[in-house]
């Protein structure tokens, strides 16, 4: 062990204090909670792409409002009925105005004597209305329904949950019983009953979805509030005599924000699904109004012969759902890194 080692004579001088390494120094500036979550979200490729897809779809859906002529949206023009997609400059069968009819690709535009300058990027429906326009408009309606319903769901759920958790005792008990009763009725049944009582239409659907789906949010918020209530900083605020609403706003809501955001992200696709579902079975939004569900319902009738009429809205709906679900997963992992290792 003790072989001779050549050492310089000054080797055993004591180290001056200044040369001591400071290894308690923190190298990077600290990140705030939100910055940290954002950084993690950006690393999650699926969620980040989904975020951009959602933003893009919203811009297209809402930004198109001034460009879509409402008359052409609802007016039927039988000459143009059931034309397949035709995109200028593309000669792939299925996107060049040709349609497979009993095994043969037939140029439907020529067959129906459509003027050569006329293009329908995604084809037309059975009344000769542009499918692209209707899908964009339908997406807008679906998004409005989902977002507004989610907003109400969120407001009711968060308020109910905070009150129930914060008050505790008898109030909590009664409020929880109410939730229990509401959630023992399948939400679809509630929605259907609501739609029967109210006049079918967008408002009723929004109300119905909001009323039937806030209980999940309320339950989660209550459970978290119960935990937060006994945290030291909340106790400190209480003992300093701050009012309950102020504590709720200043201390509870910020700490509940990650749950709220994540839960909202999961509520939106559920609401989109519900709207599509109701319109699909014919008790939701109905013609001449349109939504993704209405388009699917229309498309399904002709699916055997004109599959594109169902495929396009179905793809838009699925992409929207996948994007929201992926973003929800991404946000969950970003806010709570423990869940995914």
């Amino acid at each position: 062990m003790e072989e001779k080692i050549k050492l310089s004579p000054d080797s055993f001088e004591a180290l001056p204090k200044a040369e001591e390494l400071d290894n308690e120094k923190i190298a990077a500036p600290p990140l705030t909670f939100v910055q940290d979550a954002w950084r993690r979200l950006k690393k999650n490729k699926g969620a980040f792409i989904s975020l951009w897809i959602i933003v893009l779809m919203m811009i297209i859906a809402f930004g198109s409002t001034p460009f879509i002529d409402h008359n052409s949206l609802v007016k039927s023009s039988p000459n143009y009925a059931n034309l397949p997609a035709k995109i200028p400059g593309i000669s792939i069968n299925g996107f060049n105005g040709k349609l497979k009819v009993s095994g043969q690709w037939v140029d439907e535009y020529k067959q129906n004597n459509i003027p050569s300058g006329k293009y329908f990027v995604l084809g037309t429906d059975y009344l000769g209305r542009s499918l692209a326009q209707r899908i964009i408009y339908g997406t807008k309606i679906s998004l409005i329904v989902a977002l507004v319903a989610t907003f109400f769901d969120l407001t009711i759920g968060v308020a109910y949950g905070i009150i129930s958790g914060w008050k505790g005792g008898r109030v909590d008990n009664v409020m929880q019983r109410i939730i229990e009763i509401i959630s023992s009725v399948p939400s679809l049944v509630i929605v259907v009953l609501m739609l029967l009582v109210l006049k079918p239409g967008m408002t009723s659907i929004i109300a119905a979805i909001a009323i039937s789906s806030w209980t999940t949010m309320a339950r989660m918020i209550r459970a978290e509030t119960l935990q937060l209530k006994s945290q030291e900083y909340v106790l400190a605020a209480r003992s300093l005599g701050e009012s309950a609403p102020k504590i709720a706003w200043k201390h509870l809501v910020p700490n509940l924000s990650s749950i709220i955001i994540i839960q909202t992200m999961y509520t939106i696709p559920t609401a989109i699904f519900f709207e599509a579902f109701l319109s699909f079975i014919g008790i939701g939004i109905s013609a001449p109004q349109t939504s993704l569900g209405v388009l699917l319902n229309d498309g399904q009738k002709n699916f055997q012969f004109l599959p594109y009429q169902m495929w396009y809205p179905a793809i838009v709906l699925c992409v929207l759902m996948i994007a929201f679900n992926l973003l929800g997963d991404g946000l969950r992992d970003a806010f709570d890194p423990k869940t995914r290792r």
Partner: protein
Amino acid sequence: MSERILDIKNLEINFHTYAGDVKAIRDVSFHLDKGETLAIVGESGSGKSVTTKSLMGLLANNAEVVGGSIMYHDQDILKKSEKEMQSIRGKDIAMIFQDPMTSLDPTMKIGQQIAEPLIKHKKMEKKKAWAQALDILKLVGIVNPEKRINEYPHQFSGGMRQRIVIAIALVCYPEVLIADEPTTALDVTIQAQILDLMKELQSKIETSIIFITHDLGVVAGMADRVAVMYAGKIVEYGTVDEIFYNPQHPYTWGLLNSMPTLSSTLLEAIPGTPPDLLDPPKGDAFAARSAYAMKIDVEKQPPFFKVSDTHYAATWLLHPDAPKVTPPSEIVRRQKLFSQMNANKSVRA
């Protein structure tokens, strides 16, 4: 003299992480003889748990053994396949974990959990295995074992659960028992009971124990020999008396100094934190925190200097050219006691 069971030579283990390779174990060598208890002492992150996991072949997926050997009798554990390791684990080398509250499967009766190794290794039938599980439950001091063998973990207190974990580890009478901080998660009074139980069982079952701890106080009553680890290296090893009363490495001084004694009024903490093992220091890893650091300490890794036949320490302070330094007063006191003990011994001899 006694039979050598484990011989670890120049073990080096890296962890692959996104930031780079963490050199968790750097050139570690030690051995374990039949019937003895070796304590490995160090603060968290010093590599003690990684070392013992490598003995069990239970390293995490991103860990890689870069070099060295672990000889169990005449076989190298590092060269064994997963299948071969499965027949060693739990039978020849067993392990007790730190937290008894989470170490037991909450959904399985404890009888079955104890019987599992018997069924696996001794090919016992369930009935026979349960009978043996009952015996070992008695041995670890569970009251009313006939009834409790059918209970679930949540029906036991922390101390009782640790007894069950010990029972699981010992049920196949392993040659080596690795105890990874077995008392850290327990109340102080329970700690003593568990330590007593382990000592008692060691003499009954004749097992060798590797005892991992960050608490020097626990070591004194348990171990025959002690190895002190710091930043993935062993910095000093020797018999219990040698480490406690004649420590040589400044880190060992720091550890002893931060341990409460009857006479001490003020506990000295070791300043600073351990180095980043992504890029371990060139010289003595403890230099940055040591008040006795010398120029050579940051330039060159110290080799082991022999203090006695059983006692070695890796510090340049033991180099013949090094200046004599005075250790902290508590250490001086201990070293005085040590020379007295030696004097007594030689008189008796």
